[in-house]
């Protein structure tokens, strides 16, 4: 159990990218009437940013 929770927290930035950053980007774009490029939907655009951003944070240990 403890090992599973540790694993979960290790991957938390990646999950945060999917679970929070992606919908936050999407909903902010909609609120500001900003169209995503290449005809993408706002949530797909959010995921394209949130997933790699969260993943690099897991690897590097830094959001920026």
């Amino acid at each position, binding site marked *: 159990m403890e090992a599973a929770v540790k694993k979960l927290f290790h991957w938390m930035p990646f999950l*945060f990218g999917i679970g*929070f950053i992606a*919908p936050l980007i999407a*909903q902010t774009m909609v609120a500001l009437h900003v169209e995503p490029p290449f005809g993408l939907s706002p949530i797909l655009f959010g995921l394209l940013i949130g997933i790699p951003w969260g993943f690099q*944070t897991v690897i590097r240990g830094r*959001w920026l």
Partner: protein
Amino acid sequence: MADGPFNHSDDQPMVKDKDSAFFNVETDADHALPLHSGDSLDRHTRRNLRKEEIEIARQFHSGRMWPYVVAAWGCFAVWLSFFPLAIMGWLNLPLAFVLSCIFATGGYVTSHEAMHSNIAREGTKYRWVNEWVGKVSTIPIVFPFSMARLMHLEHHYHCNDPVKDPDYTDEASNMFAAWYKTWYNRQPGVDGSIHHYKRILAGMGTPAAEKALKDTMKLQLIFMTVLFAMAWSGYAIEAALIWWLPRHIGLSYIRFYLSWAPHHPREGKTNRYETTRIFKSRLGHVMSMCMETHLIHHLYPGIPNHRTKEAYFALKPILEKRGVDTSAL
């Protein structure tokens, strides 16, 4: 709800009780060696000064503590109401954001009184009030009371010790670096802030430390679950403005004003009268959360936060004789 009996003794060492409550009864003899500027004072003078100091400090130990209770529970209730109100579309989001930042930051102050059992001592009728003030106050910053109390008392016991003071990681060369560090220390791969606390707790290995670690894990999971659920239900901006962003702003403000500003520079400053400096805040006494006179809190943690300035002016002549730089205030 009142302070516990004040200990006049000048002959007992600083001790922890079974609940880690803080008794500030250390003697001059225990601290005679590293007294810094006051070293020139002989033992007799130091002892008399200490007695005088305790006598003055004693007058400030009592005070009305119910405003802390009302503020803690009232602000928490208002903050909680923001969630359903936001979902129902009945919330002024910019106003809720500003208030959430204030609640997240100010919550540490009310919790801090509870950490030192200043609202009600263990074994008294209203002890539960003390505990619940502490518990709800730091939920907006996702910092469980059990961890906050343990780490804060460790900070008092080992103030400015590079290895043992849990807050030593906040040290920075100047205010700009300090603000940057408040954010940097929260990065997942950096051993600062709550990550540092987790490591210290794991090393302590006591039942209280284990409980604090479990509480931290639970609160962080609740935080993430709420954020993810709200975000994927179409309320990401609301979640960001009510909880996520106020938490980050609050933590940075707390780290800067409650940790860096009163303790900088930390290196080598470990004796009783030099762990904390007296400074003049650009934002004033209230906005700096009474940290200008934080030295009084480290000398007498039983003095409530709102009375430290008053106590400082009463103690100022003695502090000057002890070598404290009082030029700022």
